[in-house]
């Protein structure tokens, strides 16, 4: 009886520990070495790599870029996902069809769809400029700094709004009925009902959904790699992609380990702060 509980937990825990712990410890150790393509091996150079990270302007720029990219696309996903979920929440025609349709993008492989999006954003042969051409516009999608940034954002919104939609719709479906009756008796219109009933009730789910998406968005690299390769210049280079270039392209193993640990710590700290702030902002209001 007492022993059998380990039968359940230990296999999974041991396997995960074995697969994760070695790489993590190894990364920490390597970050204090000068391992690169010329001198592979574990020597000890103290905190030199971290000093270099501190002065690496390209890394900090990539971090700022990543923050702007993930914050803006996650906000857009949240607003759109919430609007769509509200639209198909109640009975309406074609509801099931629309729900499946709205879910499909998040099931598709990001890299594969990025390849398709790249042809869409092709400047002379793609449909994006063809359609804009009808109103006399032409955008240099992937060769202009800002336009390239926006195209990555568009793809992110296309791919991940469904995820927000899924979580928020699941939340809406499980809301209690009583508060809506009370609001109707008070004679509240749809706008007031939303702000005073739906939105506060949905706050916990909203926070969860936003945090999960921010975690995933902070890792973004596939889409960037395929669509722009970080370019033009470094205009769309995110932190993961920069570390990838340093580590697996330039083979500066020691330095990229220091970069990735710095990145990991910053991610954990800032996501924790964001979660705390969101909880205070959204939950305290209706208390």
């Amino acid at each position, binding site marked *: 009886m007492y022993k059998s509980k380990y039968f359940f937990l230990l296999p999974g825990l041991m396997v995960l520990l074995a697969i994760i712990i070695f790489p*993590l410890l190894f990364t920490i150790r390597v970050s204090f070495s000068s391992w690169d393509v010329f001198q592979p091996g574990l020597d000890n150079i103290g905190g030199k790599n971290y000093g270099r990270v501190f002065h690496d302007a390209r890394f900090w720029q990539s971090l700022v870029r990543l923050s702007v990219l993930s914050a803006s696309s996650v906000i857009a996903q949240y607003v759109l996902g919430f609007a769509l979920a509200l639209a198909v929440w109640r009975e309406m025609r074609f509801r099931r069809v629309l729900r499946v349709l709205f879910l499909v993008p998040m099931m598709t492989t990001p890299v594969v769809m990025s390849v398709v999006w790249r042809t869409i954003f092709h400047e002379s042969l793609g449909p994006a400029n063809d359609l804009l051409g009808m109103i006399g516009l032409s955008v240099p999608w992937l060769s202009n700094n800002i336009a390239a940034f926006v195209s990555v954002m568009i793809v992110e919104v296309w791919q991940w709004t469904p995820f927000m939609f899924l979580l928020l719709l699941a939340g809406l479906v499980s809301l209690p009925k009583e508060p809506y009756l009370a609001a109707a008796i008070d004679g509240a219109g749809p706008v007031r009902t939303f702000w005073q009933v739906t939105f506060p009730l949905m706050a916990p789910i909203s926070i969860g959904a936003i945090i999960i998406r921010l975690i995933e968005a902070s890792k973004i690299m596939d889409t960037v790699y395929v669509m722009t390769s970080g370019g033009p210049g470094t205009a769309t280079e995110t932190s993961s992609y920069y570390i990838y270039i340093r580590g697996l392209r330039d083979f500066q193993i020691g330095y990229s380990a220091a970069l990735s640990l710095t990145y*990991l710590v910053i991610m954990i700290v800032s996501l924790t702060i964001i979660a705390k702030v969101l909880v205070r902002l959204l939950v305290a209001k209706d208390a």
Partner: protein
Amino acid sequence: MPLFYRIVKHLCLLLWSAFVVMPFLWALSTSLKDANAITSGATYIPWLQFQPSSQGWRSLFTSASTGIDIVGPFANSAMVTLLASLISLTLGTLAAYGLSRFEFRLGFIKNQDITFFFISQRIMPPIVLAIPFFLMLQQLGLLDTVAGLVLVYIALLMPIAVWVMIDFFAGIPKALDEMAMIDGCTPIGAFFRVILPNSIPGLVVAGMFCIIFGWNDFFFAFTLTFTQTQLLPVAIVSLNSSVTPWWSLSAFALISISPLILIAFVVESYMSRGSLAGAIR
């Protein structure tokens, strides 16, 4: 006002649907084009705007001459995804059940901390683990093999399985386990005879998510394999960087996402049936 509101709402839904469908339709239309149809600018409707050709689709299955092969990567992707999902689901379900029914203690570490350890693996950016994984698989001689990828994907997918299943087991009343044990089952027997058969909906959802994330991963497949064990996402990216014609790329893209479209229907049907806890009664 209500009528105006309804019109705006349906217009917005229509616009969003068009945005969602657009890349798929574009890929479908492009996959039917030939060189002429592509270089003459963006066209959309076959027969009307251009003469369709099947070369894009045929090129994927007559691999030798063109260097495009979809059958191999498809088989690899399917094998890696299914094996890793199956192992993650098995280990993850057992661990989730253990965590939801028994108390564990090791110094200051309690159940919540162990649960957090499992789930927090999702926060880890792949890049942090990529280089050690590379060296680790090199040592084990598993670089560029299915077994090596499966090993790495287990770490990627098990947190998802644990996350879904802990939630699910929390919705199954403990009285069910206790009744089975009164009838003479051991805890392990109770799990396999009573709990597991009642957990099919949770297992399906957890399995779906494992398959989605496994099938869609690019980064590890990209850094840990070269030519022997190519998965679909890696194969399409290497085609993308060479001078592969758009028609082949588009057909390739459509084939490689097709299994997941089917999964969207399954997920939706579970969502529409309401909460999972309701499904087991």
